[in-house]
Structures are given as structure tokens and as C-alpha cells.
């Protein structure tokens, strides 16, 4: 499809991403026998936060104020690199996956620094855990992409996903899809502060990672952080959906619908995981992430040829 159509999925991501949280919430409500919040609640939350004033700690510096906007800017840049459908990404080049991962590293870097800027022990604790787990998650993610690159002989995200859907030579790679898909799913859960790594529901600071890092943010800043979180989930989910679903092999109009459907299905899956699992003890989280890395490594080994 033409390049000009790439803007449509980007717009969809910008508009639809908070909706993922509604889906997760509804799924959890279903399992809990509750009715759940209105479907548009995440939008209302963000809109309310964006209308508020602000309270800043006297310890904080400009780093604290730049953190949320720089985080959102990096997710937006990552969004431009994400292939969100058959038309590929807005920007694509050989090796863009490295930039993609490092843009999330930028987001993490500014979030962690903003947390440390408050001088709060709680936020230091969250920041410390965040950098520990993400170092392992990054390796697992890179290994997964490496396996896909070996399978498809491409090194750009768009190229990889395109080849996964279209090329006949990759059809021998079903186990690879499955292994990389499960590895990426674990990384997605860890990176987006979901169970079993982090608990987005609780406000008990001692057990949290991401939520505790943003304790001191409020108002507009918090709204930006939440929106960036929605986009991050959407971006990673669409990547995972692209790996698992053979979107390119069917008619393009149909495939344009397959991907969003896959993303929503993923949100349901996250809701199921969150309803049926307890949070892991923090010392067990590295084992989970290393296991994700091992799955990706296995995928690399079983790549045919």
C-alpha cells in the first residue's frame, strides 16, 4: 500500500490507545463479577488531569518537569518507527529496531531521573527496580528481534513484519513465531508495569515499580505520563500482534482490520493474566525475564536454515 496511508494507523494509535486500558479493565471486571468502569473512563481521567494545576516539591529541578514531556516525545518517536499495518511505519530503515528500543530507554532514563529528583525513598526504590528489570527485558527483546531477523533476513521492523506476513520462505518458522511471541509478551507485561511483574492497581509503595516512580507527579504532568503509558502499550502490542498474526497474507483491507483486532485481543489477554495470576515476588522477576530471554534464544536456535 502507498506510504501516505501510514498516517492512518498512527492516528488510530493516538486516538485508540487509552481504550486498551478500558478493555483490560472490563476483562478484569468480568472475572471479578463486577460491571467495570465506563468504556471512556481512561479518556476522562486524562482529560481531567490535563485541566488541573500543579504542585511541585521544592526539591525538584527542571529535570522533574522535562521528564514527562521527554517521555511522551520518545514514545511518539517510537510510534513513528512502529509498523502498524500493511503500509509499514512512517519512518523505516535498516536497523531501526535499535533506535526503537533505545527510544524506550530514553523514556525510562527521564522517568527514573524525574523520580530521583524528588529525593523520595519510595521513588528511589521504584527507580532502582525499574532499571534492574529493564536491563534484562531489553536483552530478551533484542534476542527476540534477532531471531526474527535471522528468520526473515530483514533488519527493519517494517521489513521483518512484512516478510513474516508475506514471504513463503518463513512459513517453516511457526515455532519461531510462537517462541518469540511468548518472549515478547513477557517483556510487554514487564515494560508496561502489568502483572505479574508490577501491580498497576495497588498504591502500596513498597511493592510497586512504575506507579511509585510517578508518585509526585500530578496534574498535566501525570496526564502526559498516563497518555505516554497508553501509547507505549499500544506500540508494543501492535508489534506483538504483527509477529503473531499473519496480517500481510490476506487482502489489505481485511488486514487493516486484523491488526487492531489483534491488539484488542491482546488487551483481553492481559486482563485474563491479571485476573488469574498473583504478582511475583520481586526476587522472582529476574528469573521470569531471563526465561523470556531463553525463549528468544531457543527461537534463534530453531530458525530453519
Amino acid at each position, binding site marked *: 500500500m502507498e506510504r501516505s496511508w501510514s498516517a492512518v494507523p498512527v492516528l488510530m494509535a493516538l486516538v485508540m490507545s487509552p481504550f486498551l486500558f478500558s478493555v483490560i479493565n472490563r476483562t478484569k471486571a468480568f472475572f471479578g463479577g463486577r460491571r467495570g468502569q465506563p468504556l471512556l473512563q481512561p479518556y476522562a481521567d486524562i482529560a481531567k488531569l490535563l485541566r488541573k*494545576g*500543579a*504542585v*511541585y*516539591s*521544592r*526539591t*525538584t529541578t527542571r529535570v522533574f*518537569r*522535562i521528564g*514527562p514531556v521527554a517521555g*511522551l*516525545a520518545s514514545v511518539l*518517536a517510537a510510534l*513513528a518507527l512502529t509498523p502498524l499495518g500493511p503500509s509499514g511505519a512512517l*519512518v523505516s*530503515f*535498516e*536497523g531501526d529496531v*535499535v*533506535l526503537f528500543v*533505545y*527510544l524506550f*530507554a*530514553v523514556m525510562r*532514563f527521564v522517568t*527514573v*531521573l524525574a523520580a*530521583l*529528583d*524528588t*529525593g*523520595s*525513598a*519510595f*521513588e*528511589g*526504590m521504584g*527507580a*532502582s*527496580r525499574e*532499571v*534492574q528489570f529493564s*536491563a534484562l527485558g*531489553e*536483552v530478551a527483546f*533484542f*534476542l527476540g528481534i*534477532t531471531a526474527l531477523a*535471522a528468520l526473515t533476513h530483514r*533488519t527493519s521492523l517494517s521489513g521483518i513484519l512484512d516478510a513474516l506476513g508475506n514471504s513463503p520462505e518463513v512459513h517453516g518458522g511457526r515455532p519461531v513465531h510462537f517462541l518469540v511471541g511468548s518472549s515478547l509478551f513477557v517483556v510487554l507485561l514487564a515494560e508496561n508495569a502489568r502483572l505479574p511483574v508490577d501491580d498497576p492497581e495497588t498504591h502500596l*509503595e513498597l511493592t510497586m515499580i512504575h506507579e511509585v516512580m510517578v*508518585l*509526585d507527579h500530578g*496534574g*498535566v*504532568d501525570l496526564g*502526559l505520563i498516563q497518555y505516554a503509558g497508553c501509547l507505549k502499550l499500544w506500540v508494543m502490542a501492535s508489534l506483538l500482534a504483527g509477529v503473531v498474526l499473519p496480517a500481510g497474507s490476506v487482502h489489505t483491507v481485511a488486514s487493516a482490520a486484523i491488526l487492531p483486532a489483534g491488539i484488542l485481543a491482546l488487551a483481553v489477554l492481559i486482563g485474563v493474566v491479571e485476573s488469574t495470576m498473583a504478582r511475583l515476588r520481586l526476587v522472582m522477576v*529476574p528469573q521470569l525475564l531471563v526465561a523470556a530471554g531463553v525463549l528468544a534464544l531457543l527461537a*534463534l536456535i530453531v530458525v530453519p536454515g
Partner: protein
Amino acid sequence: MFLYVASLLALAAGAALSIPLFSGRWRWLGCALAVVGSGLASLAGLSSLVGGAGWDLVLPWSVPMGSLHLGMDGLTALFVVPIGFIRALAAVYGGGYFRKEPNFRRASGSWFFYNLLVLSMLLAVGARNGLLFLVSWEMMSLSSFFLVMFHREREDVGRAGLTYMVAMHLGTAFLLVMFLFLSAGGGMEFDSFAPAAGTASVIFALAVLGFGTKAGLIPMHVWLPEAHPAAPSHVSAVMSGVMIKTGIYGILRVLTFLGTPLPWWGWSLLLVGAVSGVLGVLFALAQHDLKRLLAYHSVENIGIIALGMGAGILGVVYGSTPIAVLGFSGALFHVVNHAIFKSLLFMGAGSVGRAAGTHQIDRLGGLLQRMPATGSAFLTGSAAICGLPPLNGFVSEFLIFSAGFLAVVSGGPLLPVGTVIISSLALIGGLAAACFTKAFGIVFLGFPRSGDAAAATESNRAMVWPMVVLAALCVTLGLAAPWVRFLLEPAVSVLLPDPSGAGLLGPVVAALWGISAVGAALIILTLALFWLRDRVLAGRIVRVSETWGCGYLAPTARMQYTASSFAQPTVNMFRMFLRPKQTVKEPDGLLPESASLHTHTDDLFRERLYVPVFTGVKRAASLLRWLHQGQTHFYVLYIALTALVLLTWRLW
């Protein structure tokens, strides 16, 4: 050529003049000539890279086997540029750093050795004769030793100096043997090197051992974490930023003598690089001293460079020029980038040390409010060393990553090569981010953890400006990625078996443009969103209050997370390698009076490898101690006996 010789003369003059002029009006001359000489050298390198012109200069020198043969090619030029540039900025910084130094005599001695060190480094990378190279190499080791020993009255400095001296000379011993092998076919001229068949592997191993000691590859790195914290900060900046890179230069230059490489050369560099990278950053994470932390990060970055070189060699071995080009150019660009951000970070650490009187991370805090310029520059350097876009560190790591991905796509024997590169770079990147969020976050953010840190003030302008320039360069080189290739191509072509010159990096130009565009977009988006946020908040109520403490309203600095606590989970996760030592005094009884926790991480290789070996050597040597009577006639007797033994042996 003219610029280069002029710079050598200026530096020689600087060295010669700084001793007699140690006091009085002219005592800034040593510093000024260092700035001028280094700046000229940098221009000389740059003009050669841009103009594409190399040259050769042979001057008469009445030393057997030796000749004053200097040369300039792409590889030399790429090392001369950062040497000159960083040296000049560090000299400016050093001028500010020594401004309050009461001991003129010692400061001027320091400038003597500083000039000498720049001179010897320029000679070492320009030398085209083995003997000249070894002489300048030794000059480099000695002059840097005296620079390290600036605060010689401190006990730790003496110990560091000794470690450094021993390490350098052990390294040079390997190089002496290496040059003997290289010159087996004829003289010591580089052009005439023709190693005998079968010795190439030996030469390569000796080069990695000898030059690796200078560069700081694990396990030859033990001098780095000792020497860097001991030296004055501008000296650490140039030692870590550019001096250790002469080791990289050495390995690369020797590769050009050896013809077609063997697979195990590349593999060994790859593995040593991966180990240095990962362990370097892990040990850095466990440190409490800011300069020691930075020193271990040099080990990490040398590891990244070695990964790139390994990829380059294996690309040549398996006949894949694109992989070779990407690997070598990534390694070389990382040499330049590391020179920039590491010297920036050491200058920042020095500035912090001057202002707060300590480099202990857990005694600092809140310095960004007190030292905004140092803090912002340090932040830029931290982001750059973590390889974050849109800064320069990302571009060089991207090139090495690309070599890895290309290797994976090529498959066959290259698949494991790519996997090693990608996975180790990924782990290094994540851990480096952990380490620098700790370094910057604890030192510059939060509340000050000691009175000295609370009373810190910004450093003088001579110290601040070099940092600002380097920080700006981090951003510029990151955004100017597509143009950087013109500087890298001449150097890379020296390293390839069939040099084809320009256009080597052609295949990645599109990617470099992409990086540059996304980087620019990132900056613009951040600024635009920040402006928008400011506009939105302008009409609303913005209050200032305390940090949220679960309702507790009187937080103190001691309640903050410390560097040790921040790093603890990660350090604990890797305790197998790090072996952190803990001394805990638990609160005792119903009304406990005190409790304490003390953690310390020694260098694994120092404790487990070098200390036992050197203790053994000492024990063996002490067995012969009874021979040393200290009386002259005994020694005469030994000589006579030796002569007698030799005589009988010969006559037998």
C-alpha cells in the same frame, strides 16, 4: 605536515619552558602552550581527514635501527583529532583546576609532564618506526605516571601510581617481544615489517596483551580503577578519554601488518570485548566513588570498541566487507565519542570534587540546583555514554549493532557472532543506564547528603566552558550522523584488505539519515511539548510543597535512597561475579543505639588473580634473598664465580 610539526614544537617548548618559569608572571605559559600545541595537532589531523592527504616525514636520527619516521594516514588522523582536541580543552580546564593550587612548583611540573604526554602520544600514533614507537610509548607511560602522582603525599595515590607503573611495564614487555617478531624479516621500519610465516598469531596475541593493558581490556584492566581516581581530574579526563585509546590504535595498526586475519583473532576480541563490557559496567555499578565508577566505565567502553573490532575482523575473515566496514567504523567512531563524553564526565566529576570536597557519591546530592552548568553538562554526558538517542554514543553503538544484525542475517558462522554482539550490547546498554541514572541521580538530584554538598558552588569559567563545548559536541555529532562517515571512511579503508576509499559507509547512509531525523524530531517534540505545558500551566495555580512522604511532613536528606541502595538489587543479582562484601551491625536490644551497613566491592581480578600471582612471585624471590649480603666483596665473588663457570662451560 606543517601543522603537525608546529604542534610538536609548541608542545616541546611548553615542556621545556614550564620548569624554569614555575613562578612569576609567566607560569601560565606551560598551560597555554599545551592548549596551542594540542589544538594545532587536532587541526592537522582534521585537515588530513577532510583533505584526504597523507604524508611521510623522515628526519635524521642517529640511533641504530631507529629513524624519526612520522606519517599521517586515515587511521593516525582519526586518533590525532581527538587527542589534540580533548587535550586542548583539558588543558584549559586544568588551568582553572590549578587556579587555587598553592604549590606552583608542583603545578608547573605537572604542566611539564602534560606537554610531554601530549607530545609522546602524538609521536606514538604518528610513528612509522618500531623503535621510535617504543620510545614514545615509554615516554607516554612515564609522563602519565608522574601526572598520576600529583597528590603524592596521599597513600592511595602512591599505591595507584605503583600499580600503574607495574602494569604499563608488563604491557610494554609484551610489546618488545612483539616488535622482535615483527622485525624478524628486516629493520624496524613499519614498511619493512614482514613477520615470518606462522608467527602472525603469536604477534596478534602479544599485541592484544600488550596494547590491551594500556587500553584496559579485562583482565588487564586492574590499573584503571586505581589510577584514574588518584589523578587530578583533567589528567583522568585525558588518560581515560584519549590515552587508553592509543592501545586500540596499537592493536589496529598491528593488524595492518599481519595480512589476512584468522577467525580466532576476531572471536577472542569479541569475547574479551563482551566480558570487558559487561563486567566493566557491573563493577562500575557497585562503586561508591564517582571517579572510580567512571574508570570502570572506561573498561566497559573499551569492551564495546573491542566488540566492534572483533566484528570487523570476522567480517574480513568471512569475506563480508559490509560487516567489516560497520564493525570497524563503529569501533572507531566509539573511540572518538568515548573520548568526548568520558573526558566531559571526568571534568564534571572534578568540578564536583572541587566544589563539594569529595567524590563519594553517598555524600553528595542536590548539586544540579547549586551547579547548573556542571550538572547539565554531566547529564548530557551521562545520556551519551548510555547510548541514548539523539546523542553521539547512540550512533557508534548503532553501527556496531548493525554489524551484529547484518551478521545474523548472513547466517552460517556469522550467526553466533551477531548474537554475541547484539545480546552483550543490549545488556551493557541496560546496565549502563542503571549506572548513570545512579551517578547523575544521586549526585545531582534530591537533597544534599552532607554539609559540604549543600555549600557547593559552581566552578570557575575555565572549568565550565570545556564541559559545555564537549556537551554541545555530543549533541552535534549525534545529529550530524550522516556526515560523520566522511571522517570515518579514510580510517576504515586502512584496515580493509583491499582499500576502496570513499563510499564505504554508503549502505548505511539511509539509516544514518533516519537516526538524524528521528533525533531532531525528538528534540523538537520535547521542546514543543514543554512549551505547550508551560503555556497551559501559566494561567493555573502552581504551588510548591514538600515531596510526598506518606503524610510525613519533615523529611530529611538521610531518608533518601542512596547510591548503594539504588544499585543493591542489581549488584545482588550479579553477586556471582561481583562478590560484594557487607559489614552489617544490626540494631540490637529493645532500645537500639546504633546500626550500620557497610558495603564494598573489590576488583575480582585484582583479588583473585593478581594478588595471588604477585604474592607467589614475591615468595619465590625471597627464597634467594640470602644471596644479597649487601657487602661489596660478596658481589665481586659472585662475578668471579660466574666468570669461572662460563669459562669452564666454554672450554668443556
